[in-house]
């Protein structure tokens, strides 16, 4: 019983212990993902050739796939970075 006071005093300080806060910095983004998607290419208005139209349309398909890839990258980046960030909080 006589040791109760010192023990209480020893643990007393732990009740005012501040929470441990170490924040992780905001993760970087690869520069290629920050580039905006270009506008679609227009067909030359002076042409009447179907091959020119098909060629422009196919180039636009390519642009679409390149841009869609960026969206996939953003999703991938978010999920990966979220997982990494959450690992710091365990």
């Amino acid at each position, binding site marked *: 019983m006589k040791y109760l006071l010192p023990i209480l005093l020893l643990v*007393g300080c732990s009740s005012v212990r501040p929470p441990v806060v170490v924040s992780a910095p905001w993760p970087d983004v690869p520069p290629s993902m920050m580039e905006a998607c270009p506008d*679609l290419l*227009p067909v030359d208005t002076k042409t*009447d050739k179907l091959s020119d139209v098909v060629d422009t349309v*196919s180039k636009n398909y*390519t642009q679409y796939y*390149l841009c869609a890839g960026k969206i996939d990258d953003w999703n991938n980046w978010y999920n990966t970075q979220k997982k990494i960030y959450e690992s*710091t909080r365990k």
Partner: protein
Amino acid sequence: MFGFIIQHILSHLPVWFWPSVAGSGLLVYFLSGFLTRFPGLKIYKWLFKPLGLVIFVFGIFMFGGAGVTAIWQEQIKEAQSKVDAAVVASKSANTKLDQVRKQKNKVIVQRQVVIHERIVQDAAKMDATCKVDPVAIKDLNDAAINPESKK
């Protein structure tokens, strides 16, 4: 500022400091009878026991606080090492992501080159059987314009 200075001093005290303060308090408490034998100290007889007790209690309290602070510092160190590891993992993930994207883009562009060559080859055949009306081109170009994009 004053609080910061106090905190700074407290955090730089050696581990043995507060136990020795508590020990000194105990010594004063138990040796109070002996101390009062000194002629100059006799008049403080009433003070030794309470003072020794107060010093002992204060030393124990501060020892507890120092222990808790040490645990806290250790937790901060552990959290910081986790954050450092996360920064490295984040950069590594970005590099990998960038490499994979470059490879995928290369495949997409290569495919475009192949299709373009096929169109060039088939152009004569296409153009011989079909002539595109300017109205169709205008409609197609209008459809390609993003109405939300800045002009």
